[in-house]
Each structure stands twice: as structure tokens, then as C-alpha cells.
């Protein structure tokens, strides 16, 4: 199970926060903050895995993160997920974002927060990995976009 997916920038500003298990609002913020401090301390050339500790769920949970230019993508997962598998899943997610936004940047994540969520929903659903095939994900998103256009056209 994936417990949470967090995306924040180099300054710790959250860009995408998705929890698959309920935490009260303050705890969520605290988790984002502490996770940020944990990953910030780490150089780029050391391993991409961190033990969550008391942060989320206890010792069974791990933080797996990747750092792209200005953004950190952090997945918090339990022991039933493969570390390297998740590492590549992050890559799939980011590449999909790149395809959907045509050269994605932090701004896309800010201004199209809802779209980012829709894309994520096609990759991970309720904490379970739904689809890892990038073409399939993009196809789903495009189907939704067509809908948007047709409705927008009908209304506008």
C-alpha cells in the first residue's frame, strides 16, 4: 500500500499532497514539514530510501523519494511495496506529467493542480498501483481532455 504521496519544492512549499490514509489536517502539515526536512538534509548522491520512523505508520513504512530540479517527489509506502519498483513508478509518474503538460515544470503543478491529481488518480488509486504503463495513462487522460473540450465547446 502507498500511504501518501507528497510533492514539494526545494523550499518545502507543498505542490501536491495526497494521503491515502486519513490524518488530521495539522498532522498532515507536520508530516509534509518533517518529510521535507528529512530529504533536504540528504545529498543527491546517497540512497533514495528513508525510514519513516515515527512520522507515518511506524517502522514498517519507508519514504522513497526522487529529486527533480526544483521538486521533490516523495512516496510513503509500507513493506508490501518494492523499493526499486516505487522508484521507477515515480519516474513513470513524472514522465507522464511531462507528456501531458509538454515539458512539465513546477508552474504546471501549481496552476493545474487538479489535473495533476487526475493524472495521479490514473496511476495510483486508493493507495494501490493501478497502472504503470505510461501510454495507457496518457490515453486515459486524453479521453478526459476530449470530454473537457467537447463540454467546453458545447457550453462556450
Amino acid at each position, binding site marked *: 500500500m502507498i500511504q501518501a504521496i507528497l510533492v514539494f*519544492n526545494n523550499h518545502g512549499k*507543498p505542490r*501536491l*499532497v495526497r494521503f*491515502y490514509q*486519513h490524518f488530521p*489536517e*495539522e498532522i498532515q*502539515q507536520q508530516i509534509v514539514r518533517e518529510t521535507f526536512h528529512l530529504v533536504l538534509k*540528504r545529498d543527491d548522491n*546517497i*540512497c*533514495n*530510501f*528513508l*525510514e519513516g*520512523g515515527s512520522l507515518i505508520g511506524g*517502522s514498517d513504512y519507508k519514504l522513497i523519494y526522487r529529486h*527533480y*530540479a*526544483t521538486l521533490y517527489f516523495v512516496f510513503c509506502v509500507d513493506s*508490501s511495496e*518494492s*523499493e*526499486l*519498483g516505487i522508484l*521507477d*513508478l515515480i*519516474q*513513470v509518474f*513524472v*514522465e507522464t*506529467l*511531462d507528456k501531458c503538460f509538454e515539458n*512539465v*515544470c*513546477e*508552474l504546471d503543478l*501549481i*496552476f493545474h*493542480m*487538479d489535473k495533476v*491529481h*487526475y493524472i495521479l*488518480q490514473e496511476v495510483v*488509486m*486508493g493507495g*494501490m*498501483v*493501478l*497502472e*504503470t*504503463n505510461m501510454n495507457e495513462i496518457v490515453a486515459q487522460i486524453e479521453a*478526459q481532455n476530449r*470530454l473537457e*473540450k467537447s*463540454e*467546453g*465547446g458545447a457550453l*462556450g
Partner: protein
Amino acid sequence: MSDIVEKTLTALPGLFLQNQPGGGPAAAKASFSSRLGGLVRGITALTSKHEEEKLIQQELSSLKATVSAPTTTLKMMKECMVRLIYCEMLGYDASFGYIHAIKLAQQGNLLEKRVGYLAVSLFLHENHELLLLLVNTVVKDLQSTNLVEVCMALTVVSQIFPREMIPAVLPLIEDKLQHSKEIVRRKAVLALYKFHLIAPNQVQHIHIKFRRALCDRDVGVMAASLHIYLRMIKENSSGYKDLTGSFVTILKQVVGGKLPVDFNYHSVPAPWLQIQLLRILGLLGKDDQRTSELMYDVLDESLRRAELNHNVTYAILFECVHTIYSIYPKSELLEKAAKCIGKFVLSPRINLKYLGLKALTYVIQQDPTLALQHQMTIIECLDHPDPIIKRETLELLYRITNAQNITVIVQKMLEYLHQSKEEYVIVNLVGKIAELAEKYAPDNAWFIQTMNAVFSVGGDVMHPDIPNNFLRLLAEGFDDETEDQQLRLYAVQSYLTLLDVENVFYPQRFLQVMSWVLGEYSYLLDKETPEEVITKLYKLLMNDSISSETKAWLIAAVTKLTPQAHSSHIVKRLIQEFTVSLDTCMRQHAFELKHLHENVELMKNLLPVDKSCEDMVVDASLSFLDGFVAEGLSQGAAPYKPHHQRQEEKLSQEKVLNFEPYGLSFSSPGFTGRQSPAGISLGSDISGNSAETGLKETNSLKLEGIKKLWGKEGYLPKKESKTGDESETPPIPQESTIMENVDQALTKKDQSQVVTQSKEEKEKQLLASSLFVGLGSDNTISLLGKADTVSHKFRKKSKVKETKSGEMTSVHNMTCSSFSSLSNVAYEGDYYLNTLQDRGDKELKKFSLNSELLDSESLTELPLVEKLSNCSLSTPSLFDDNNMEIFHPPQSTAASVAKEICLASSLLEETTEYIHSNLTEVCNNETISVSSYKIWKDDCLLMVWSVTNKSGLELKSANLEIFPAENFKITEQPGCCLPVVEAESTKTFQYSVQMEKPFTEENLSGFLNYHMMDTHSVQLEFSINLSLLDFIRPLKISTEDFGKLWLSFANDVKQNIKMSESQADLPSALKTLQQKLRLHVIDIIGNEGLLACQLLPSIPGLLHCRVHADVLALWFRSSCSTLPDYLLYQCQKVMEGS
């Protein structure tokens, strides 16, 4: 790829302006981007948190006004919602918008609905009350013909759905499993998996559909169903062994590249699918040779095919290795897997190194030589700049710790501990150090010093068990008394030195440990007087930084030392100081000390030296208060109600609606309920009342899905799985190969020393040799982690006892099971032989002897043994109560066992009219053997002791006497003193036993004495365990009588018990109760049952039970105040045990 997210916020204003004109075809979109854009721009422009807060509050209040305005269109609402999501993400409360999010999902068109659903799934949680409003919308959308709507509904269901509403959507989602579009089927599978997670009982019936999903023509759907299987197999692997073949076939196809190219990721076929399948296979093949054999081929192929070209192939390799080491071992595969681990460990990529260490940690218990191979890498990892790698290395070292390398490893751990600041790391590591120190400590000084470090670093965050265990270890001591005293003395001395250091602050827990030890063991000191110790403690007490809890410990220590001290002016000063303390607790302690101090003799009696381990005798029933209670009652005080009864009453008062018919209330505490009009039939009474119990169930704690770790008797360990592990352990590696390895290491060392080498290298080599000492050659067992087979210096006595009794039980189990099912004798015997490999040879011999014996017995005396097995089947719970007696002492020879069985046959003939227990030996010596069995007669328990004279000599005036026991009335049957017991004959003594006072289990002991030929008298003592159940008999009464009795009894106890699935219906529950507790089933009304029993001689006990889902509500009543509690306890035992 890293250039993807390269544009940064500094470019924001310019980019934003560019975005604006082209920003969307509709005006709405432009206005949306500008609003959200404005907000974002505003926030990024700000410098302080305070300003941000102000801005967002402004934004929120304007949003609040907009969303609640009636003129706001759904389209505007959609934009507002996105802004609300943004604010919530930044941590501001937008709860006023929740209801509007739901509204949007309900009423909007597709796009608006999508935002609505997203907002709902981000804002709310499963138990949020507003979520109920969404259920109807979800139901509607699930029935929609629009694919997108269906998908949205399925998505929201899998993210967030109220548990109690699952039945509303379940059939719709089940239908979706047959949907023509694979994306719908796939999402439906995951939604059902989610239901399985939050309410497993509700989706039990569709397990067959999961199987269909596994065979789906679309790979995506099949992959989704693997989530479910991984989970279910983790919970219960034995139920899915039949699917092993399918999983193997699927994996073969995937590995063989039979999937469409779409599924390739960096030209690796469906890597995530492979990972999932490998995990499933690992779980299925664990401890199961036959299943494991099915997968050897495919694992081999996976290893071969995974060419190392991409990160994700390492992921597959890692899973492969993990699986190979999880399943029943095959040497060929193990070899390949070990090579793979080498690739990981030696890889320059840190992620892979980390996983390599993890894999090593996992396999080290099976293959310690691997650690030797990689010892230099491990040493390097100890100094790795990445703390995560370091921690993983320490974890690995923790697994290979033994008595020889303990000091080096603990030193490394302490070094790491001093560097780390994270609480989680400290707690974890401190626990490990304490465990290792207890197990392998080389000497007293080291042990105490290590524990000092643990206490001062772990301090107040560490697990409370650590100081508790340490103190218990000191107090209970080990086998050698002088050694114990030295340890204690050393502890005292070291604490005194620590306390002498000025300006050092120790954690409170450490101070508490110190004060206890000083209080108990200062008497061991030669030089320092108790006064000096008291002075030190006094100084601490006056310190402001000490918490009041610690002060209580300190005062307790002073109190213990006071009787040993000669002068007491400091104590007096202390009393003076603290009798006026503002802390009431401290004042209390000070006054206690003061009063004790006035009577030194009393004080010495009360606080004896070094008696902390003596058992205290406590009158748990508080019988000395009986008079006081009676007096209180006679003056009109309300009788005491047990906690659960009070709670139930409280709950029933809190209820809004009263479902009970007025005037018939059973649960009312007073006497009104018992005076209900006689004309009303009892059946309706009870069912009316149980409606109420049903309601209460929903109020009570939900225990479903919570793993049961603690039972009445304490922690519920999983013994079976442990023995399973043992049997899985591969054959111990050949000693020669290990020796070779050591040799290699040594020669390597020699060579490297010959070649001139940097000093650093040499240090590493030295470290390696000290770390890996004892690995391999002689100590393979200690590598198996915590297998307690090696005798450790600091192992607690109690532990030894535990393991012994564990063995005894399993021995008993073995004998018992071989008795009960003869057909399995050979098989089971084999099984146990396997699992018990490492037990003593002597015992092994005995086992085989036993099973052989039974085999031969089964040929000749089949009917008899069948009878025996019948008997044990009908009364298994009673057998459980006398484990120990059934266990035959190892020295008993095969001949005597045979004799016993013959004996049993004669006894069986005598006593067929009553049920009775097996014959069990209670004591013996070289001439005589005493066995006993119980006959559960209708009016009493008849204990029969049969004395067999094994010698060829005559015994004179044999006499058997039972010690009088408080709870029993024992009546001798005639003929208990026999003038002569002839050679090789058997005589029996009979006693009838009545119970005076209820109890759960009691011992009945006695002795046998006799004279040998040469007139010297021999006495043999024995004891036997009697349980309450020995005195319970069915009570056969009519339903009417039950009703009358029920109303006349004042003592009742209620409890809900959760039943296992197999027995979750009334008939089987009643059957269990009838068979195991000997309750008489009087009547069954719907889902309620009435049962009755009597406690001999004639105390009736009534039980009303009711089944609701998988909960059994028990309600006992009796005229005896304690019987209901005891019955309830027995009931829980049998219901949970079966």
C-alpha cells in the same frame, strides 16, 4: 529527465503573463486561472508566514461568501473548489466548503462532478458524516451509461467510502466485473480490494469472482487482482496453494515475453507485475517443499532473464533473491541468489548497496558464510556517509552478534547512537543494544557500563521494558549467587561514582534505576556506609531538575536504607523537609517514612534486606473486608457492581430510544426486573431483551480486524509458526566449507599484511576479524539470531523454564495427538521428529519408541485404542488442563508404557458407565508407579489412583493420603490402606472430591508411603491439577424452570465473544459449549440458546446466549456470586481455543 522541472518560480511573473492570453478557450477558464493565479502570485511574492496567513484568510473569507451566495453557478463553484483545495493543501481550514464539494459532485456536469469528487476525496475521511450524502450520487453514477462517470465513481469509492454503506454499492460494483471495458473491470477489482481491506466480512462471498478476475483476458485486470491475492495469501497462505500453478504460469508467460509490447518498461516485460508475482510465490512457498518445487524453474528463468541493464531489473532480481530465500531451499538457486546479492552489495550505486545490505540481513540467518564473503564491504559501509546505509549495516551486525564479537558490535552501535538525534533511531537502537547486552555480555563491568550508556542516551524515550528488564535481571539473578552479588555490587559502585560527578544531568529513568539499585543493594558495600548513600540520594532529592516521579523512587530508596543506617539526622532532615512539601504524593511518602522511622523494629520487618524477589502472599479476594462490606450493606449501601455491568448500564442510559418493553427489563439493576408478571412467556422476554444487547454491541468497542496478540493469560505466541521455521532451516552448512572460508579470510589477511599496506587498511582488517569472529566455524547456532539454544551468560532463569515447559507441552501434544488419531500416527510422528531435530537424542528416541509402540498397539488392540481416542475426543478441554501429567517422564521405559495401556484397558471396562480421563502417571520410582485418572460421576468427582508395584518384591502397608485443601471436601472410599501389595500387581485407591468454593484451577496433592521388605518406609509425593470443569455437570431442567430460576438469581455477568468463522452460528457454538463445558442445552429460540449446568454439589448456573453476526453474546446467572465469572472465563477459553 532531470531537466523536466527546470523552470523555477523566479520566472513566475513573466511566465504567468505569457500563460494568460492563451489560457483556455472559455472565459471561465481565464477567470479561473487569473483567480488562482492571483492567489499563487500573491503568495509567492510574500516573504513572511504571517503575511501568507493574512492573505489566505482573506481569500478564504471571500471564497466563503462566494460559495454560499445563491447566485453562484456550478461553474464558478468549480473554480472556487480548486482554490479551496489549494488552501487546504497549504494547511488552512476550508471546512465550510466541504458540503459544497459534495453538492458539486451531486449536481454538476461531468467536469464539475470530477472536481467535486476530487475535492471530496481530498477533504473528507472515511468516517466523516457528510460522506453519507455522497452515497446516493455514487450509486447513480455507477449505474450511468457514461464510461467516465462510472470510472469517477469507482475511483472515489476506492479512495474513500463509508464502511457501513458498502452493501449499497457492492452489487453494482460486482456487476462491473463483467463490464466490457477493461479499465472499468480493473477499477472495480481495486474497489473491491479496498472493501476487503476495510470490511473483509462483507466481500467474503465474492472470492470466487476474484478468481475470475485473475483469469481475465486483460492483463491489467489480472494485475489488479494480484493486489488482492498478495494480501489474502499474506493472511492465510494455506488457502491458496492451489493457485500456485496459475501464478507460476503467469510469471512464466511474463518472463518469456508473451505479453504485448505495451507492457514493456525499458524493454523489461511488465516489471511491476513480475515483482508482485514473485512476492506472492515467496509467500506461497514458505515452509512448503511441494509448492516450492513448482516454482524452482520459473525462478531460475527470472534470474537468468533479468539482464542488468536498468534499475528496474534490479528490482526484479531483488525480489527473486528474496523469494528464493523465503521458500523451501534449493541449493542450486541459493548459489545463484548469493551471487546476485554480491552484485548488489558490491555495486557502486548506493540504492543497490542499500538493498544488498537488506538482502544480506535477511539471508544471514540461513547462510552466515555470505557475511564472511562480504566482510570488507560491510566494514566500509559502517563508515559510509549515508546514515541510512550505516543503520542498515548495524541491523546486519545485530543479526550476527555472538558472544565473541559483542563488544565490537555494541561499540559500533553506541558510536552511531551518539551521533544520531532522531528519536525513532535512538529508541530502536537502544532496544537492540540492551537486548544484546543481556544476552551476550562478557563480564559484569562491561554489562553495567553498556547499560549505563543505554540509560543515559536512551533516557526518557526508550521503551519502558528496558529498565524494567534490567532491574528484574539484577533482582532475580542467575544460577550463581556470588556472581550475582558481584554484579549488584558493581552496579552500586558504578552508580555512586556517576552520582559523584558534578553538573551532569541524567535522564529521569536512569535516576530511577539508580535509586532502586542503591536502595536494594547498598548493603553490599564495604567502605561506604548507608549514611553516605542516603546523603547522595538526599542531594538528588533537593535538585530542582528531578521530576516528582523520580523523587518518589528516591524516597523509596531512602526508606529502604534507613533501617540499615546507624545515625539518621539526614533522614530526619528529609522528613522535616518533605512533610511540608506542596506535592501531596511526596508528603505522603514523607509521612510514611516518618511513622516507620519511629518504630525501627517494624521497619526492619517491613523492609528486609535483599528480599525483592520473594513472593508476596496477597488475599486477592479481599476476604478480610467481608465484615466491612456486610456492615455497609446492612446500613443500606448499594451493592458493588462489576465494571462491565456499570458500563452497560451507563450505555443503556445514554441511549435515546428505548426498545425494551416497559417493565420487562432484565438489565435493570434493581429488583424490578425479577418481579415481572408471570403470565408473559419467557421467550418474548428474552428476545426483547436481546434486541437491546444487539444494540449495545454497536456501541461497544469494535474488535474486528484487530489482531489478537494478548489474551487472558498474556501474550499469545505463535508456537506452531516457530516450529515451522525451525523445520525450514536448511541443513547446517558443512563445517569444512566454513573453515575454508575462515582460512581464506585469514590467508587474505596474511597476504595483505605482507604487502605493505596503509595503516587504515590494517585497521579495517583488524576490525573485520574482530567483527566476524565466531562466524562460521563453531557458532552456527548463534547466528540463527535469537535461537535460545546456546547458554548465555545473562539469560534469565525464567526463560529457561519457559522453554522447558514449551517442550513439555509439545511432547504432550505429540503423545496426545498420536493417541487421538491413529491413522496419523506415523505421519505426525515424522513431522514432530523433523521439527524437533535439535532436541536431545534421548527424547527423540523416546518419541520414536512411542510411535512405534502405538503402531504395534494399533494392530493388536485396535478397539481399545479407538475407545481411548473417542474418550479424548469427547473431552479435549479437560485434557488441556493436565498437560503435565500426560507427559511421561523420559526415564519411563517402553515396557511400562505398554503396561499402562494394558492397565487402561482394564480400567476402561470397569468404568464405562461414566466419562473419565486418560490414565496418567503422577509419580514413580524404581519400585512403584502411581497413576491417576478422573471419573466424572453425576454427583461427584471420583479420583482414582492406581498404584503399580513394578518390583518383584512385596510392599507392605501401602497408604495413600491426600493433603487437605481449602477448596475441596475429600472423602475416602473404603480400602485405602492396603496391608500388602504383591509383586507386579496393581491396586487402586479411590477418593471422591467435592468442591467447597469455586475456583478455576487448583492443585490436589498427596503422598503415598509404603514399606519395603526390609521395613524401611518410603514416601512419594504427587499432585494433580483439578479444574472447575471437573465439577460442572449438565443441569436438565425445562424452559419454564429456566425462566423461574433466571428471575430468582441476582448474580450475573455479560460478555460478548467474537467467534471464529468456522463456528459463527448458534448450533456449532452450542455444541462446543455442550461438549466442552458440559452445559445442557435446554432450548433454542431463534438465534438464542438457553443452557444450564450445575456446579457440584448443587449450585445451578444458567446461560443465555445469542448469536449476532460473528459475535456471541453470553449472559450468565447463578445463585453463587463467583460462578458466573468463572464460567465466563471457561467459556471464553473454549470458544477462543477451538
